[in-house]
């Protein structure tokens, strides 16, 4: 095993390195929150909601293409552009909101770590602190290159969900029918599930992440075709993984009428239905996705807040060079971890609340993006074409309405 392994790893790494920002963003998209939403949707509605992945893919593609284009043309991060063009007040509002949302998201990721490790019989009082310390050291003591390489390997692990789905022996005929002739319902729970699915796929912080990584990679307009391919592959990866999670849960949990509200419940419920292997694979995927997002999320959040307010930032800097950046990073991580470890805390309520703020912020940020990407002084001749604008504004409008709908719904549920 020792002689061949390095060659195989090297090939895999080289392949993933070429793909770059799009594929990493696509993978982070399927974080603990995403997996939970897909699993719950599969358990509740079976194959019925698979059709949503089509529009979700389109929306994701349109939004990320704009991010990549803005990053390449301006060489500036999204936070940078918002601060320079939207003024201090709106910037302050957006980033205060984002800080709360991302603390909530980080908490969700650590809840994912806790849940998945409990499947393997490890207490959350061990798994969560150990993971958090590991994440902290990776970011504070490691270098960007090293961290990125680890993230790229992580991306490949998400494909374990394909294995999970196949182990659950789905009825492929029914899957096909559900996609071609979806039975769309109009009752409120169904509609809000649809909104949840699309909303979890286009999380605001990812727009910032995408744009910064395009710049970090030093991509230029000559690379546009490759970059676009990378974005498409990343978006595809997101929906493919989502597809298999939904299929796995639909063909087992839904078929037996089991309802869940956490991703780790899905993993646990899979054991008697699809075998222990499927359960372990599902939990393993959840663990990797949670750690992955638990690393990138606090870093990205700290980075764009520092970018917007003019503090030095970057994980290649030392604590002395960028105290605000590391301070923010450590606080977000610590608060997220602390909430998960408090016994008896209503985790689901807290993550619902952060989803509400998320839902309010998403349209605001998308409108900012549309205005920026259409500003000739910023984008020169690379402003949106008529087609991109039509798709873009439709997306923004629909998402805006859907998000507001979701927010009102959630407020009443709380």
């Amino acid at each position, binding site marked *: 095993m020792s002689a061949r392994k390095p060659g195989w790893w090297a090939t895999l790494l080289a392949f993933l390195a070429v793909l770059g920002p799009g594929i990493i963003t696509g993978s982070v998209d399927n974080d603990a929150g995403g997996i939970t939403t897909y699993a719950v949707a599969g358990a509740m509605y079976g194959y019925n909601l698979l059709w949503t992945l089509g529009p979700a893919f389109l929306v994701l593609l349109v939004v990320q293409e704009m991010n990549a284009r803005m990053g390449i043309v301006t060489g500036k991060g999204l936070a940078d552009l918002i601060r*320079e063009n939207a003024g201090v007040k709106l910037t302050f509002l957006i980033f205060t909101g984002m800080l709360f949302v991302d603390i909530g998201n980080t908490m969700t990721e650590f809840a994912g770590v806790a849940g998945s490790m409990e499947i393997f019989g490890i207490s959350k009082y061990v798994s969560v602190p150990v993971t958090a310390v590991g994440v902290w050291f990776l970011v504070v003591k490691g270098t960007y290159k090293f961290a990125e390489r680890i993230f790229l390997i992580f991306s490949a692990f998400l494909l374990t969900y394909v294995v999970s789905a196949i182990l659950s022996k789905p009825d492929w005929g029914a899957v096909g029918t559900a996609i071609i002739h979806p039975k769309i319902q109009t009752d409120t729970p169904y509609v809000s599930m649809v909104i949840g699915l699309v909303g979890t796929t286009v999380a605001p912080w990812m727009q910032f992440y995408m744009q910064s990584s395009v710049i970090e990679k030093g991509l230029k307009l000559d690379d546009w075709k490759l970059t676009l391919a990378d974005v498409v592959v990343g978006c595809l990866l997101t929906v493919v993984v989502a597809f298999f999670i939904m299929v796995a849960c639909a063909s087992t949990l839904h078929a037996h009428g089991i309802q869940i509200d956490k991703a780790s419940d899905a993993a646990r419920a899979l054991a008697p239905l699809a075998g222990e292997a499927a359960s372990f694979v599902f939990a393993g995927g959840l663990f990797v996705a949670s750690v992955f997002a638990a690393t990138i999320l606090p870093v990205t959040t700290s980075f764009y807040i520092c970018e917007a*307010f*003019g503090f030095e930032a970057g994980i290649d800097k*030392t604590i002395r060079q960028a105290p605000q950046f590391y301070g923010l990073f450590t606080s977000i991580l610590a608060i997220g971890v602390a909430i998960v470890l408090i016994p008896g805390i209503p985790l689901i309520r807290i993550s619902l609340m952060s989803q509400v703020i998320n839902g309010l912020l998403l349209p605001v940020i998308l409108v900012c993006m549309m205005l920026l990407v259409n500003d000739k002084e910023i984008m*020169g001749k690379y402003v949106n074409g008529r087609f991109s604008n039509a798709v873009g504004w439709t997306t923004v409008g629909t998402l805006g309405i859907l998000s507001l709908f979701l927010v009102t719904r959630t407020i009443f549920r709380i």
Partner: protein
Amino acid sequence: MSQPTGTRSFFLSYLLETPLVLPDGSKVKLREVWATTDDTPRVSFVTVKIRGEIRRILWDDLELRKIDSGRYAFKARSLGTLTLSGTDDLIQIRKHLLDRQIVDLDGAKVVRVNDVRLAHVRDGLFLVAVDVSFTALLRRLGTELMARRFFADKLLPRYIPWSEVQAFVPSTGGAVRLASSAERLKTLHPSELADIIENLDIATQAAILDALGEDSVADVIEEMEPDAQVSILSRMGVEKAAELLDQMDADEVADIIEDLPPEQAEQILREMEANASAEVRELLEYKDDQVGSLMSTEFLSFSDTTSAHDILQAIRRDRPEPKHTLAVFGLDDRNRLAAVVPLTELVMADPAVPLSDLGMERLVWVRDDAPISSVVEILGRYRSLAVPVLDEHDHLVGAVTVDDVLGDLLKAGGKRLRG
């Protein structure tokens, strides 16, 4: 302009969006403040929007009426022209400066402008400093006074005087130009400049590199992180990149070329001068952990019969870079390494003494394919500043200096060594 006594300076944030009464009595809001690009920019006019049209009002035609603390109102005596032509040389303080990134030359870093300080001196209003403090943000959010109640005097403005600021002005087509002469930037050390450039966006990077001139650009790029080197060189285009690399030492070029995509590396090597690229290609043959990948191919070697006096003369004449003069190597009549003499010893020696009589009795050198760790050990053990490198035919092919090794150690140690 006339004003109440005591009002000697303003924050830009207090001026923007303040009410302005026009000669006909109608009210508009102050939109933008325009200043010259002199060493101390002077405010020449402000702009307002009247029925959808932008109009100038000369600063001298404005009359200030202070309402209460921190709030102003203006009265215009007359309206200026409609057109904004001939304004290319002016800075729009709100658009070009406020919320933008600038270089703090004294602190040698990139910061964001949270507010701008304007001062009334002698015959006009001048841009004197930018405020980069968090307090300035609170001021613009309208919460400064409230926050002061809790944090009292901890919330002070942090000014950077305009003479210590390098600002950038975007122009049409996405290009950026410097708001003042590049001389200010040249006061920074190349490594500081490298850090600053890495933190700026592409258009600003291009503007700085353009303004620095070819010689300094090579020095700055040498100091950059590999990622930034790659991104800047690939944007530059093959021809310009080759021209730039021709001015650097072969070992540094090899380090950069190694990080470029193979196809682009090959194009640049072909475009470079034949001698330079041949040297680089030889260096690229070495593996990462071999001495050859670290050594400089520039060094001082003389026949070992040359006198100390003649060598020092030659150094005075040719003015090599300091890192290449740490030691001088003597070659015998068969072109073999015969002496390794530190510069200090050469300086102290009797001018008539030949090279062969100087240096240590025992020659210390290292083979080009030896591991890097061996040269680190030699430098440490013999307290030498430079070690000659010989190839398999015992030909002198390069030298490793403490400088090379220190750079390598810092890279390997990453930020653990830096703090």
